[in-house]
């Protein structure tokens, strides 16, 4: 099978071309390093199946960081290379193009972002460039699909080694080519360019960051609450509850199937949060409590990503982060982790050193609750207002800072300095951003909902078998004496390994005091990541480092829980 490699500088749209060629769903964003590992897909070429590989972006084939190493290692595996070039930044991109040609692989050049080049007054003589390079050069606008079919039809014209040159001479060769093919018309700064300057200038950028944060928070809350209040709650209360009630009458209360499907009735009624049946809590928690916030969060995050705001935020917070022994870009795994810890853990790969990645992943796993958990905490403590919510999230934030300082002091090594390309601001393509939000939301539905149902099932089985009662008895000294929680809370802590949102929900029927709820919510966030996140972390860091991280997590959770128990 023919193997086609998509290669190019970071953030030139390789993943968009990939998704156009293969029809596969991939997450694309406007910052370098979104693709950290190669993604495989398939397309049909001349009636035959061909494999397409989306290779992480690189500035050079002489690798300087891990993602670039992946790219350099991939190259010998390919039969044809589609070199995706950013038409708005021809010079720097051609440097890699000449290296690719020199590698001896047949190359086709996709001159991507062709429309944006036009807007920026950049005029490229495509025929002349094709003549000079000796390989097909196809203008494309991958985000809208323009030029892609032309690119595919010219794949068989790919040529190898058509531009012999010396390594040391490459930049001047590139300069000569650019001189011959590119004309730039001077023009005024666009609004987006001025906004870009504005958001990186500390005097204006820092206030802007605060405003962006507040607006993002307000939007997520507004959309999440709106969806729950006007859509999901009415659906569950008015339509679903009567149906389940009928089933309850049919099964008769008290039996095994009634317990499993409907759960416990509270005062003869279904309580969606407390009943703990598969058809009640099992559906209500993921769909009506968590999904609206997950959707709202990803909508806002995806917009910020596609505009190109995140790397700027990384630069603005870099100085503070270095005081904490971290790198400015650590902000990206933390923000992604707020959605779901799994993509958060994966995105630690944008950090250069293993030490940095370990610290970022551990901090995230301990202190950053995912949106599913946040939604449940808000659902549980929201009625208390700030007195309930501030202690939970404030403690986690403070813990994040303290832990970062401890890591800085204890782990040998330093945070490397920031070194990142700042992408231009782009107006998000509605279709592409919408697709990304849908992709992430769908991932939640297909990946999370089954786990939630499994969680509810496991709880029921463990109650029936008496496991929870037994463990509650055994662990009572820790749970009661250190954390000040009732022995039954052990059930929530057990389920927390599987799904944190269900675990938080399980606190609801226990009749806990505000203090106990706060402690339980903080401990549930910190003590261990959910099973899915743990699996990803284990793959990323290996068993030795994860054992270390796990020990840190449990210790920290017990300390902070015990401390809160003493202080509150």
């Amino acid at each position, binding site marked *: 099978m023919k193997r086609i490699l998509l290669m190019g500088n970071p953030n030139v749209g390789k993943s968009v071309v990939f998704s156009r060629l293969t029809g596969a769903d991939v997450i694309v964003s406007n910052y370098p390093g979104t693709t950290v590992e190669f993604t495989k897909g398939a397309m049909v070429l001349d009636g035959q199946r061909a494999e397409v590989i989306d290779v992480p972006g690189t500035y050079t084939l002489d690798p300087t960081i891990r993602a670039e190493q992946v790219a350099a290692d991939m190259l010998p595996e390919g039969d044809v290379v589609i070199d995706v070039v950013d038409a708005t930044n021809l010079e720097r991109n051609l440097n890699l193009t000449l290296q690719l040609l020199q590698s001896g692989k047949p190359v086709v050049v996709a001159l991507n972002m062709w429309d944006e080049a036009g807007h920026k007054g950049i005029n490229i003589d495509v025929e002349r460039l094709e003549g000079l390079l000796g390989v097909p050069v196809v203008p494309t606008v991958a985000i809208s699909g323009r030029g892609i079919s032309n690119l595919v039809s010219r794949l068989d014209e790919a040529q190898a080694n058509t531009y012999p040159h010396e390594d040391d001479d490459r930049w001047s060769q590139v300069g000569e080519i650019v001189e011959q093919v590119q004309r730039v018309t001077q023009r005024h700064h666009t609004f987006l360019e001025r906004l870009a300057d504005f958001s990186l200038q*500390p005097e204006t950028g820092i206030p802007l960051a605060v405003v962006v944060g507040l607006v993002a928070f307000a939007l997520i809350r507004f959309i999440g609450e709106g969806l729950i209040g006007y859509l999901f709650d009415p659906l569950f209360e008015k339509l679903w509850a009567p149906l389940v009630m009928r089933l309850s009458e049919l099964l008769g209360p008290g039996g095994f199937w009634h317990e499993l499907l409907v759960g416990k009735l509270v005062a003869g009624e279904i309580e969606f949060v407390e009943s703990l049946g598969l058809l009640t809590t099992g559906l209500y928690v993921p769909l009506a409590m968590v999904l609206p916030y997950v959707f709202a969060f990803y909508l806002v995050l995806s917009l910020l990503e596609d505009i190109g705001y995140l790397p700027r935020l990384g630069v603005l917070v*870099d100085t503070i982060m270095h005081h904490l022994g971290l790198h*400015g870009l650590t902000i990206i795994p933390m923000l992604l982790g707020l959605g779901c810890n799994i993509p958060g853990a994966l995105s630690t790969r944008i950090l250069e050193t293993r030490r940095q990645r370990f610290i970022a992943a551990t901090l995230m796993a301990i202190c950053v609750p995912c949106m599913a958990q946040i939604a449940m905490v808000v659902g549980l403590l929201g009625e208390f207002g700030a007195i309930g919510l501030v202690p939970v999230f404030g403690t986690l934030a403070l813990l994040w800072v303290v832990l970062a300082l401890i890591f800085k002091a204890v782990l040998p090594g330093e945070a490397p300095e*920031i070194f990142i390309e700042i992408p231009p601001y782009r107006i998000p393509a509605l279709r592409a951003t919408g697709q990304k939000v849908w992709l992430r939301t769908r991932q939640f539905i297909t990946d999370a909902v089954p786990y939630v149902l499994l969680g509810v099932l496991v709880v029921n089985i463990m109650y029936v078998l008496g496991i929870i009662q037994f463990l509650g008895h055994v662990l009572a000294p820790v749970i009661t004496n250190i954390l000040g929680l009732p022995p039954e809370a052990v059930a929530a802590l057990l389920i927390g390994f599987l799904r944190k949102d269900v675990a938080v929900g399980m606190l609801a029927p226990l009749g806990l005091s505000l203090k106990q709820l706060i402690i339980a919510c903080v401990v549930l966030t910190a003590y261990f990541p959910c099973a899915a996140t743990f699996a990803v972390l284990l793959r990323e860091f290996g068993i030795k480092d994860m054992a270390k991280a796990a020990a840190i997590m449990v210790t920290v959770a017990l300390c902070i829980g015990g401390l809160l128990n003493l202080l509150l």
Partner: protein
Amino acid sequence: MIISAAEMREGQTGLVINLSGGHGMVRRMQAMGVRPGVPVVKLTSQPFRGPVSLQVGATQVAVGFGIARRIMVEVAG
């Protein structure tokens, strides 16, 4: 006059003369387009020796203060 990119004023243009530092760092800067003979414009600098952002050709890069100090540029008077 030869100064480092960290010392440039905002908006000032300079011609890169020399890059120093680790081999990997120098290669990486070159791959991004920051190399001797190329003009750079200083865009912003964050307070308390924070990152410095530079325009190089069509590329904007942000580098830590320590890296910026190792990018030597020739500026007018």
